[in-house]
């Protein structure tokens, strides 16, 4: 790693101030950033650790019944504290990486990085979550802008994520066994006004909504509703773990399994 300083602010305001310095970068749980630094793929002058900020920690229920998660809340905490209030989200958080990774990695860090194979983007997009930063609120539909690309501005920090709770939901992940990332993961959520289907791990543009499946499932929430649909392989990720055809195939299979598990 190149040399850098680490600051550990205890308030959002102090973190934003520290991030305004030249070549400052936010540090969540570090489960992606630290390996990146080790490969010398990043060269910050200062890392601003967000995990000591009390106001960005924890899970609560909002005024409209939505699940509110502090941006610096780790995956293990989300898994434990949403088990009753939002089982689909809990199941997703509780199957990220491995137990030690889940004790460090944070929801804000995952969403800010927007890895095309990460799990959390599927939950946020599949739930129609609201990403709350130090300056504004961003709808999940506007937030994800392609592989590792988000609507976040320089120095902007995810302080909270609000997940509307669906009637039924499930995240089905085909685990890439070495990394525990999603080879393909599908989050299905059935709300009163329709079904949302978010796919991660598959597209070269990162997480996306499979709108044809949403339409089909909104009128018939069963695996059979997907029978007539096909997923084109164009634009799907191809790597040593799976071809684009294989990933396209998995999208439909994982969606079907998620619907069955949620129903």
């Amino acid at each position, binding site marked *: 790693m*190149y040399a850098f*300083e*680490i600051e550990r602010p205890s308030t959002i305001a102090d973190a934003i101030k520290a991030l305004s310095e030249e070549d400052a970068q936010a540090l969540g749980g570090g489960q992606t950033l630290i390996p990146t630094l080790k490969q010398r793929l990043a060269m910050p002058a200062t890392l601003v650790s967000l*995990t000591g900020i009390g106001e960005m920690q924890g899970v609560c229920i909002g005024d409209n019944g939505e699940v509110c998660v502090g941006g610096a809340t780790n995956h293990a905490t989300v898994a434990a504290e949403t088990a009753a209030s939002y089982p689909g989200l809990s199941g997703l958080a509780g199957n990220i990486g*491995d137990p*030690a990774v889940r*004790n460090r990695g944070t929801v804000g860090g995952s969403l800010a990085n927007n890895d095309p194979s990460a799990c959390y983007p599927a939950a946020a997009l599949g739930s129609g979550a609201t990403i709350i930063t130090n300056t504004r609120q961003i709808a999940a539909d506007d937030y994800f802008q392609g592989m590792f690309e988000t609507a976040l501005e320089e120095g902007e920090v995810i302080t909270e994520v609000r997940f509307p709770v669906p009637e039924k939901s499930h995240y089905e992940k085909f685990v890439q066994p070495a*990394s525990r990332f999603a080879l393909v993961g599908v989050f299905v959520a059935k709300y009163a006004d329709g079904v949302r289907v978010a796919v991660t791990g598959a597209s070269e543009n990162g997480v996306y909504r499979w709108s044809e499946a949403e339409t089909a499932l909104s009128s018939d929430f069963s695996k059979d509703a997907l029978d007539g649909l096909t997923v084109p392989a164009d634009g799907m990720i191809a790597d040593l773990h799976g071809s684009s055809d294989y990933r396209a195939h998995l999208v439909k299979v994982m969606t079907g399994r998620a619907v069955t598990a949620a129903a």
Partner: protein
Amino acid sequence: MASVTMTVNGKSVSGDVEGRTLMSDFLRNDLRLTGTHIGCDTSQCGACVIHVNGEAVKSCTMFAVEADGAEVATIEGQANTDGSLNVIQQAFQDHHGLQCGFCTPGMVMSAAALLKDNPKPSEAEVREYLEGNICRCTGYHNIVKAIMAASGQDVPAVAAE
């Protein structure tokens, strides 16, 4: 450089570290606690698992500065106060839960974290919990047996035998 103070295995320790100093390097190089092993240094293998404020973490994927003020437990603090092996360590010995031994510190620390939250795990739960701990000797069956034994349960007959 930054000054850090933390409690490691019940003792208060402090040191001066760079921002980029990993917790695993602080333990091994500064505190000379070399029981925490660095197998991959890419957060895959779990040989470096320690407990920070009671939670299992990979010490190669955390900065020492982030443990400032924390309660840290490493493999060196796991034995009983009279120096004898604790229940998990003894079970690893009894069930031949180690071959080369390189992964063992992380396996024991992960096992301790599992049994703290789930005192009677099923075999499947043990295997799932060890997803982040890799044994290069592939001695998983005996590791699982050891953890089942340490939890006071019957040691499963493993399909591969």
